[in-house]
């Protein structure tokens, strides 16, 4: 571990990806992720990697498909409208069992929306987005440090499960500066070792016999019986991921919480300050912050609803998307309240505090 440097989230995640062994990056400019592509354009050549400003997000994700098919760590990034264009490619990556990392620096939508931070792509990220039966592991950082750390986490998970992984951030995390400490740069030998683990399936010509065989990267199975088996296998992979890869933070959680808050990413930062203030005033509020929003930590939320919890309060920068997963976890046990902000506007900790006070008051 080195010293801390002050950096924008977009640049930190780019630097961390290079350190994690990513040598192939393809993307198309869009605000508020442009610092990421610009950083890559400067630093990839220095790392002797490939940077291509693609002609579109569609081309970029398909370049990732080709590079990942060769067993290399490859990444693309964009913001909401561009992520919509990548959905076709993400579905193909999932269908072909390819490891890859996709960063979404979310902005306000729908349509062209605006360029301010938002969380409106939650459904798209965790419920599919592209066509067919697939799931992506979705990492939702809430600080610049976490944003950076999510890069190596994402590549490791992608390799482990041969699967596309999304980092779901937003314009605030992308553009704010915070101190960040990086993992050491992987050496060429370490990167080669990582690539080697894919040699049994990836496109890897020119191997001496008998190791040379015809490898195919493909998501097509025209025979329904074979496709059925293929999709069932994918489903089994999602089951393993669901069991093993949930990750969340418990904040001020205890058996006497009156209200349990649930929030992720940027929204959770603001909720934390409101929770801190209320708890110093003598209330008892807890927070669960899903660090990965798929697989979703349903059981952690269920467990946190002790007999003292009167309400669950969900805060999101959208019209209410993750709340559907929270409701599944709560399963009617207590009321689930919602506060949202849209249009790329953030709520302030004071607004959150006032809202929580109102909900606490209802109990009296």
């Amino acid at each position, binding site marked *: 571990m080195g010293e801390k440097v002050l950096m924008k989230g977009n640049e930190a995640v780019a630097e961390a990806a290079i350190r994690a062994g990513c040598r*192939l990056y*393809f993307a198309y400019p869009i605000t508020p992720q442009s610092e990421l592509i610009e950083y890559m354009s400067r630093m990839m050549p220095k790392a002797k990697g490939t940077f291509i400003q693609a002609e579109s997000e569609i081309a970029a994700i398909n*370049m990732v498909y080709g590079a990942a098919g060769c067993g290399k760590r490859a990444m693309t990034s964009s913001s909401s409208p561009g992520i919509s264009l990548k959905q076709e490619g993400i579905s193909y990556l999932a269908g072909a069992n390819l490891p890859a990392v996709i960063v979404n620096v979310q902005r306000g939508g729908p349509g062209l929306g605006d360029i301010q931070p938002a969380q409106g792509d939650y459904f798209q990220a965790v419920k599919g987005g592209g066509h067919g039966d697939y799931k992506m592991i979705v990492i939702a950082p809430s600080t610049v440090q976490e944003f950076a750390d999510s890069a190596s986490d994402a590549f490791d998970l992608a390799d482990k499960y041969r699967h596309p992984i999304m980092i779901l951030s937003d314009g605030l995390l992308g553009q704010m500066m915070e101190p960040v400490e990086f993992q050491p740069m992987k050496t060429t030998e370490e990167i080669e070792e990582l690539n080697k683990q894919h040699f049994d399936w990836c496109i890897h*010509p*020119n191997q001496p016999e008998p190791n040379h065989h*015809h490898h*195919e990267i493909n998501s*097509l199975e025209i025979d329904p019986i074979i496709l059925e088996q293929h999709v069932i296998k994918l489903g089994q992979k999602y089951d393993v991921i669901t069991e093993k890869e949930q990750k969340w933070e418990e904040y001020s959680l205890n058996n006497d919480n009156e209200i349990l808050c649930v929030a992720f990413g940027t929204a959770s930062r603001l909720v934390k300050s409101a929770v801190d203030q209320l708890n110093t005033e003598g209330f008892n509020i807890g927070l669960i912050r899903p660090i990965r929003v798929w697989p979703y930590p349903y059981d952690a939320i269920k467990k946190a609803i002790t007999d003292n919890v009167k309400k669950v309060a969900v805060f999101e920068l959208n019209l209410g998307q993750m709340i559907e997963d929270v409701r599944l976890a709560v399963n009617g046990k207590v009321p689930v309240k919602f506060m949202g902000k849209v249009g790329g506007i953030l709520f302030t900790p004071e607004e959150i505090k006032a809202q929580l006070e109102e909900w606490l008051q209802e109990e009296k």
Partner: protein
Amino acid sequence: MKVIAQRPKSLTDLAFTYCPGCTHGISHRLIAEAMDELDMRDQTMGVAPVGCSVFAYKFFNCDMAEAAHGRAPAVATGMKRARPDMHVFTYQGDGDLAAIGTSEIIHAANRGENISVFFINNAIYGMTGGQMAPTTLPNMKTSTSPYGRDVADIGYPIQVCELISSLRAPYYVERVSLLSPQDIIKAKKAVLKAMKFNKEGRGFTLVEFVSTCPTNWGMTPLDAMKWAKENMYPFFKLGNFRDKSLEGGE
């Protein structure tokens, strides 16, 4: 005993899934023979399209990727950048390359991406049952141009070699046909040239094959050949559009 016709090593022994008389089989064979003759099979990675030739990834006996419809040049770009030591080719139909994938092909060509593109122009969407393609000829009837392609309404067929050779980067662009034995011999030469240039790392190469789709044209294979000569040649002129090896420069 001398072997005169042998299946190229660069084809697997799977039987083709093409209709009788379809030219896809011929273009597969030419590419595979060229790969054998240049001894490139072990250094080659191919990208199959979506179209009748979707199973090209099973037919070519080298490492292959199957791309989404039209995206083959982008996938090939990712592969070539990941493995610059290897040769990469795409195999694409006219719907794949000249409609849904226009952006990917133009930009791969414009970057001078070091890949070979084999473009099968049969003036129709074969796989989906004979709809109009961007290369469908004026007044030609298809299942989605039942009154004939009306150029006033939907425009003229796209001439891919002309379009690609308007860019500066491409190294070699040639239109050949598969309509007669002589044409096939010429086509083979073009394929060999394209692959050799790529082996030498010279840049982007594209070979367009004027082809037929007897099934969706509703003709016998022989009639389809005749029809194509009469109707496609006036629009899709055979010949070389770019060969930088003859220019001396760049």
